[in-house]
């Protein structure tokens, strides 16, 4: 093992995601979610397996992130610029690549460097996270490529894990950004998922994210219960 060992509970909080008519506890929604997770495995299985080994992230984790972020669809950029299966943004790409060594305390994996050199060699030579307009456009186009999107999503996820150490905090950081003031106010200490989801100063979307991933009948729960990976 090269990186931090992730340890967490499934489910981590005694809640089920509910929003309007969407209730993750209802059997038809459970079946729909299981089918979605199966589709994700079918569509992206090979790519996810490859990058899960490089970044030491379990397939269950990556598939659940894809399910929560995009429902398994390679979506075009939304109004925040979040693109593709892992809803990555240009800023997140540049920042995680530039600050990888400072946070993870090791070089980027060779497979990742080779892949980036093949797709966008300027990324491995970056010294600042602020990209030029041309490079920004190049990254925007690259993010619509499924493999680039998932690879960079895994890279970003590993970068966040090394930075925040606890899985529930990583979810808030992935959704609300690593500079969310409430998240930073917790410092290095462990916080229960229940405390995070009832903290109104964290955006509601990020709190729902935790319930969708770590709640009862959440994506991680379904992946493990039904042995979907």
């Amino acid at each position, binding site marked *: 093992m090269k990186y931090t060992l992730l340890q967490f509970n*499934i489910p981590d909080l005694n809640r089920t995601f509910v929003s309007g008519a969407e209730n993750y506890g209802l059997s038809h929604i459970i079946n729909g979610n299981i089918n979605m997770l199966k589709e994700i495995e079918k569509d992206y299985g090979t790519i996810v397996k490859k990058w899960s080994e490089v970044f*030491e992230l379990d397939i269950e*984790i990556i598939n659940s992130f894809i399910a929560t972020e995009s429902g398994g669809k390679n979506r075009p950029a939304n109004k925040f610029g979040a693109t593709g299966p892992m809803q990555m943004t240009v800023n997140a790409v540049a920042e995680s690549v530039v600050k990888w060594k400072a946070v993870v305390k090791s070089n980027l994996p060779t497979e990742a460097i080779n892949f980036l050199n093949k797709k966008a060699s300027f990324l491995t030579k970056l010294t600042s996270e602020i990209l030029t307009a041309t490079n920004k456009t190049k990254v925007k186009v690259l993010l619509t490529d499924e493999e680039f999107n998932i690879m960079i999503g895994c890279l970003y996820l590993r970068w966040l894990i090394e930075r925040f150490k606890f899985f529930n905090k990583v979810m808030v950081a992935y959704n609300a950004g690593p500079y969310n003031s409430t998240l930073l106010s917790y410092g290095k200490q462990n916080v229960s998922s229940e405390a995070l989801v009832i903290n109104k100063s964290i955006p509601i979307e990020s709190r729902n994210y935790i319930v969708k991933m770590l709640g009862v009948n959440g994506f991680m729960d379904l992946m493990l219960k039904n042995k979907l990976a």
Partner: protein
Amino acid sequence: MNKSKFLKVTLVIIGLAAISYGGFRAYEYFSGIQRLEYSKIRIVEFETPPIAEPLPE
């Protein structure tokens, strides 16, 4: 004589290491810890039904 003593000690050490590792894995298994390839997950069973309502906004 010395050789057989060395062998005995080695075997006892290996045996003890195997027993303690086995014990550790058994403890993990019975306390509901599932090892995935790169993470350790504790499977939790809640006694009460989950809260099924939207989060406070």
